[in-house]
């Protein structure tokens, strides 16, 4: 503040003798707790990373090599890949202070459309996949337009779309499953993301690789492009972003479209994971994706958090599920612990936010 004081003395009101300490922060006397708060504020994904590492250590100590083997650890990745991909889409929407309850439905309908195109209309699989991906994007576009231009709350829009898409999915497919053997025979491209890559004892499905690629790509986009910065700005304070020159409506529509596209990719990967195309699959994808996002430290109020945090969040859920199953506990303990994690994550988010007040 010293140079401001010297500048002030040029003016009619001389405040050079006044106490200058009023507006300055006291940086020297920060408590340890304060420093932790600031560190978390800078990198919100630190919390889920610490929880993930701790849970790995605890289950590793309790279960030994049964858990701490390349096979078991990569099995966790395979189990969280679908939820993780959907979670990436969910993260984008939640960063804009929205929520997307239709992610799971978009995923399932996209996979059903891919299957129906080939098995009912004899369209080549590659084209069917392109149609499925465009369909997911279109559904996201509808969500985005309703949120941005009709100004309807995202919760209501996607709650309605969830029902509409799921009902269309059952009506269109007549609730029929396309069997794994048929897909293998006539359209193996659908099961592409189920292919496996073996490195030692570790097993990576192409679905896992897709998941990691999406996370890396989105991390780059969100941090290093103007579009990414605008997504954060819109979630943080939409009016401020608008006045500063961000085209908020376009950003919101593009976010929901990208989320729809990613969900359609999840639908493709889902075929690889379960082998068949089933209209009843992935029923809990929306709740599970929100869980991964929240445990991953992304704020439901928008503008804060990272996709990397969501990756850790999804892995935490995977580690708990597998670890507790290997220990032979009742699966309800998993849900109970995940419930505790969700509430703790939001409590920590609120605490971090206090920094600005």
């Amino acid at each position, binding site marked *: 503040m010293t140079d401001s004081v010297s500048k002030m003395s040029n*003016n*009619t009101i001389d405040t050079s003798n006044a106490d200058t300490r009023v507006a300055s922060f006291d940086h020297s006397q920060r408590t340890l707790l304060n420093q932790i708060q600031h560190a978390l504020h800078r990198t919100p994904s630190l919390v889920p990373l610490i929880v993930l590492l701790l849970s790995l250590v605890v289950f590793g100590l309790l279960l030994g090599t049964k858990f701490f083997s390349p096979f078991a650890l990569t099995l966790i990745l395979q189990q969280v890949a679908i939820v993780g991909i959907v979670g990436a889409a969910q993260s984008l929407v939640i960063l804009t202070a929205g929520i997307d309850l239709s992610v799971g439905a978009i995923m399932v309908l996209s996979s059903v459309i891919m299957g129906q195109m080939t098995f009912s209309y004899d369209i080549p699989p590659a084209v069917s996949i392109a149609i499925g991906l465009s369909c997911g994007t279109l559904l996201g576009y509808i969500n985005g337009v309703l949120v941005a231009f009709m100004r309807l709350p995202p919760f209501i829009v996607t709650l309605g779309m969830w029902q509409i898409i799921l009902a269309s999915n059952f009506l269109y497919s007549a609730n029929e499953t396309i069997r794994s053997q048929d897909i293998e025979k006539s359209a193996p491209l659908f099961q592409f993301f189920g292919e496996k890559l073996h490195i030692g004892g570790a097993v990576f499905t192409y679905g896992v690789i897709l998941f990691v690629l999406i996370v890396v790509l989105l991390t780059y986009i969100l941090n290093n492009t*103007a579009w990414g910065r605008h997504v954060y700005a819109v979630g*943080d304070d939409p009016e*401020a*972003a608008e006045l500063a020159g961000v085209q908020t409506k376009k950003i919101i529509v593009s976010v929901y479209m990208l989320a729809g596209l990613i969900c359609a990719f999840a639908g493709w990967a889902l075929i690889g994971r379960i082998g068949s195309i089933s209209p009843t699959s992935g029923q809990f994808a929306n709740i599970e994706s929100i869980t991964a996002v929240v445990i991953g430290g992304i704020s439901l109020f928008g503008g804060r958090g990272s996709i990397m945090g969501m990756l850790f969040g999804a892995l935490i859920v995977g580690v708990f599920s597998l670890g507790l199953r290997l220990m032979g506990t009742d699966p309800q303990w998993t849900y109970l612990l995940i419930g505790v994690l969700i509430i703790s994550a939001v409590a920590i988010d609120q605490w971090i936010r206090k920094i600005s007040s």
Partner: protein
Amino acid sequence: MKQPILSVRNLVKRYGRVTALDHCDFDLYPGEVLAVIGDNGAGKSTLIKALSGAVQPDSGEIFLAGENIRFNSPLAAQAAGIETVYQTLALSPALSIADNMFLGRELRKPGILGSVFRQLDRSKMQQLAREKLTELGLMTIQNINQTVETLSGGQRQGISVARAAAFGSKVIIMDEPTAALGVKESQRVLDLIVDVKAKGIPIILISHNMPHVFEVADRIHVHRLGRRLCTLNPKEHDMSDAVAYMTGAKVPETVSI
């Protein structure tokens, strides 16, 4: 007499049966600080919103450097070189100072990194942001990457002013910049206004605070009942005159300038 850089003729804006602007005139000359004062409901914020593109007038004309223009959004006004420092500041609290200063007009890296991969030129933006803040004597902020929410009210105001000064090539509009600030921080903002003026950019200052207006303004536009009542020279009139004109307690004999 010099040509006005920004002028308004016969501007009308109605909200239902309320006439916010009633054939209003307005002139801003190059290099000056023009204060706009008026009682609540006099229509000064509607006038300012029309100039910054946030409100579309029903009729009337706006001239920027002699050219007849029409803004249909704040973006269009920004593109024409008119920057506004809003009372709410229009900053994103969770983004860094540099991110905020370049929000909506980010710089991309040269070559393929920028054109294909759309990568932002972080170091260049940080360097320019630092330069702009230094120019305005705001470098008490050590870290250009700290988030705006960790700054004090006065510092935030400084960032918003620096952003306007960095991009406002023709006119800077400041809406109640000292309303939410303490005595010292207000003084700081007034210094900033003087600094920006020294760079040759004219400023429109909307304020309720008469001492602040009389400290920095070259001319005072008194707004009353949706139109310009008169313009005052702060050296020839005092604060009680201004308040009397503003409230209608006194009627100017001749309209000066």
